[in-house]
């Protein structure tokens, strides 16, 4: 098993290298001159050239890449062009809201979706199945910002029971922290509900169709015990997978949600950076995001080995 773990960890390195390459090349083959952008519209060609030199843009691409990657491995992700702050510092400053949002969203999505998926599988083929899955997909079919606006309108403006926007750090008190996260997590969570519900349903169905379940049934085991003691634990593996895959989708969905609810998270940081061509920030944050995804998937794979005795590589 340790050999498997070691192999699995080593396998992530080329992936990370590819990510670094992709992230770097997307930006540097772009048209437009970042140095001119920084220098401003009153700058002379000499000033633009000076900035190019300072940013090392005059070096050949592969050298720039090597330089950037080398620094990144030491934790130096460069400095933001616009705010002149280190990218790593900017990222850490905005990490808490995004992590909080992501965790809350996952909790809400799982809490809502798993029962839905189980119910749908239990009553597979019936109207309940179709209806319940249909409603779940509806959460996914509406773009996140539409759901967000509707929630704001209903809960924050009409009912006035939840705050409309913003983020309160957990250090300022748990209740304000929670209150500010409910609407954004719900908006985003509804989006993921369909995915998790769908996988849960498929996976539970698969298990329910198996012989050992039929035997248990024939022996007269009540439905609830059947579900919770036999079906669900076996169905857990794919559900855990989807949570892993969900992290990647989540990191993307967080971006729009932060924009709607004015949450100062990493998602907004990177979107602002992309739209204003702040290359160091874009490269650095995308690299970290991708690293997170790779690590999460690695952990998921390793968790598989732990929980599913059948898996042997």
């Amino acid at each position, binding site marked *: 098993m340790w050999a498997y773990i070691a192999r699995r960890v080593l396998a992530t390195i080329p992936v990370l290298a590819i990510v670094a390459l992709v992230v770097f090349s997307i930006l540097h083959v772009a048209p*437009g001159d970042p140095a*001119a*952008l920084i*220098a*401003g*519209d*009153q*700058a*002379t060609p000499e*000033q633009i050239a000076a900035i190019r030199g300072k940013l090392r843009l005059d070096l050949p691409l592969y050298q720039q890449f090597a330089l950037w990657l080398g620094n990144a491995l030491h934790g130096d992700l460069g400095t*933001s062009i*616009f*705010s*002149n*702050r280190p990218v790593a510092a*900017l990222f850490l*400053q*905005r990490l808490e809201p995004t992590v909080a949002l992501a965790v809350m969203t996952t909790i809400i999505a799982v809490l809502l979706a798993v029962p839905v998926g189980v119910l749908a599988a239990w009553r597979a083929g019936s109207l309940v199945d179709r209806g319940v899955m249909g409603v779940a997909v509806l959460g996914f079919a509406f773009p996140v910002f539409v759901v967000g*606006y509707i929630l*704001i309108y209903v809960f*924050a*403006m009409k009912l*006035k029971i939840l*705050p*409309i*926007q*913003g983020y309160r750090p*957990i*250090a*300022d*008190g*748990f*209740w304000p922290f929670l209150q500010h996260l409910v609407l954004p997590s719900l908006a985003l969570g509804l989006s993921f509900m369909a995915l998790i519900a769908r996988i849960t349903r498929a996976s539970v169905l698969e298990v329910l169709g198996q012989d050992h379940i039929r035997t248990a049934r024939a022996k007269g085991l009540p439905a609830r015990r059947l579900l919770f003691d036999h079906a669900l634990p076996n169905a857990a593996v794919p559900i855990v997978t989807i949570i892993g895959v969900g992290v990647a989708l989540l990191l993307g969905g967080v971006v729009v949600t932060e*924009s*709607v*609810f*004015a949450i*100062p998270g990493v998602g*907004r*940081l990177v979107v*602002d950076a992309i*739209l*204003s*061509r702040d290359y160091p920030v874009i490269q650095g944050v995308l690299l970290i995001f991708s690293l997170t995804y790779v690590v999460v998937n690695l952990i998921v794979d390793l968790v598989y080995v732990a929980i599913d005795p059948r898996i042997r590589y």
Partner: protein
Amino acid sequence: MKRIGLLGVAALAALFAFAAGPAGAQNKIVIRSVPIGNLKIVDPIWTTAYITRNHAYMVWDTLFALDADNKPQPQMVDTWNVSADKLTYTFTLRDGLKWHDGGAVTAADCVASLKRWGAKDGMGQALMGYTAALEPVDAKTFRLVLKQPIGFVIDALAKIDSNVPFMMPERIAKTDPNQQITEVIGSGPFRFVAEEWVPGSKVVYEKFKDYVPRKEPPSQAAGGKVVYVDRVESIYMPDHGVAMAALASGELDLHESPATDLLSLVEGNPDVVIVPNDKLGYQLFMALNHLYPPFDNKAVRQAVLWGLKQEEFLTAMTGDPKRFTVCAAVYGCGLPNESQAGTEPLLHPDPDKAKSLLQAAGALGAKIALMDQTDNDVHRAVLVAAQALRRMGFTVEVVAMDWSTLIQRRASKAPPEQGGWNVFLTNATVTGIANPLIHNFVKNCDQAWYGWACDPRIVEAGRQWALETDPAKQRQLIDELQRLHMENVTYVPLGMYRPTIIYRKELSGIIPAPAIFYWNIKKKI
């Protein structure tokens, strides 16, 4: 497994309950406001962006400032005098002026700051052009020696609009004018809390306890800057609807540029005050590229004047007729230099006439590239412009881009098909265009703004106006300038519109001005 689950939940609950208490005594008076944009650049000399200017007013101070009658008043300066030959100005600073990081403000700081400002700002450049020497005399006194007498020295130092001549510590002011400063240290009534700045989201200012305000009552940018709150949090919110809702519910105290269409949400709300804080507002205008066809042809440019309905543009910008004024005066309406010479086409538009004039000039169907800043609210006016220009008979290509790309591309003198442009729209504060000297956007020939209009008569008339002291002759020159601008179509004024600000009734003391000043504001708790 179930038992662990229960224990786990219990442990978590305990942890959260523990963390539930508020973090510490929060008895500070805080104003939470939404700024007009996202603060990206902190250097008000390097950029003319208004968000940076507004930010700068918090932390930096000026030598002179305009009062509510738009007359210059001393601010950091205590006394000053002009020599008999009108060539030497000597300024002495007030007592007690300190920098945020300790240390007194000295004349050397002011000299360095003026030099840096004079390298970038149009009016500053003009002033430096006439300056023979600018040097400190002692720790609190410095002098400006001119090459010839001019009438606008104090006006320049009191300039309220970008670039404002803010005073910075000498070491910061010595930064190359074409590079941005990195430290935000000033002598203004607030200090910038760098540790709490979340770029793109929140800027925090705290009251500077060692600030010594003037004794006079505040009057626009002049007078005593007394701060009655402890903290100002400037929270950038990209979503207008959310911001409006947040203000209505009390999560925010003030919004510097609410979306006018959303005001109906708070109009009946007794807790919210709506005012047009800047009585003059903005002038919307269209810049034409005089270098390339079709707008290198004067007849074509004049045809355009007939085809644009200001009302359409202004409605698209603000929606409410109470908040805009149809105005074709280059130097603004309701201002001393308002002139109506040559404004007939704009005030009585006739698209059919425009079309026939275009045909006569042989430019029917001419291709034009219209730049569109999609991330800016002027975008709406651009779409109206596209339709109006098409209605006239042009073949319009709308080139979408973000604002920062536009400000680069507009500087390009390349042909439109090769990265240049034919038309774009933008706005300017009316205070910033009130006279020929400060109105950068209609300068001609050598000093021409983007569009590169050149009529030597305009340059000459402008020069005469700057040196003229007889008001009657100045008036004549203004009319002449207005007429010439309309004839050569330096640019196309599209009217004036007034933005509003909204704030909760707990706030009072907001000074009417082009920027929101946070001194003098009191918050009832």
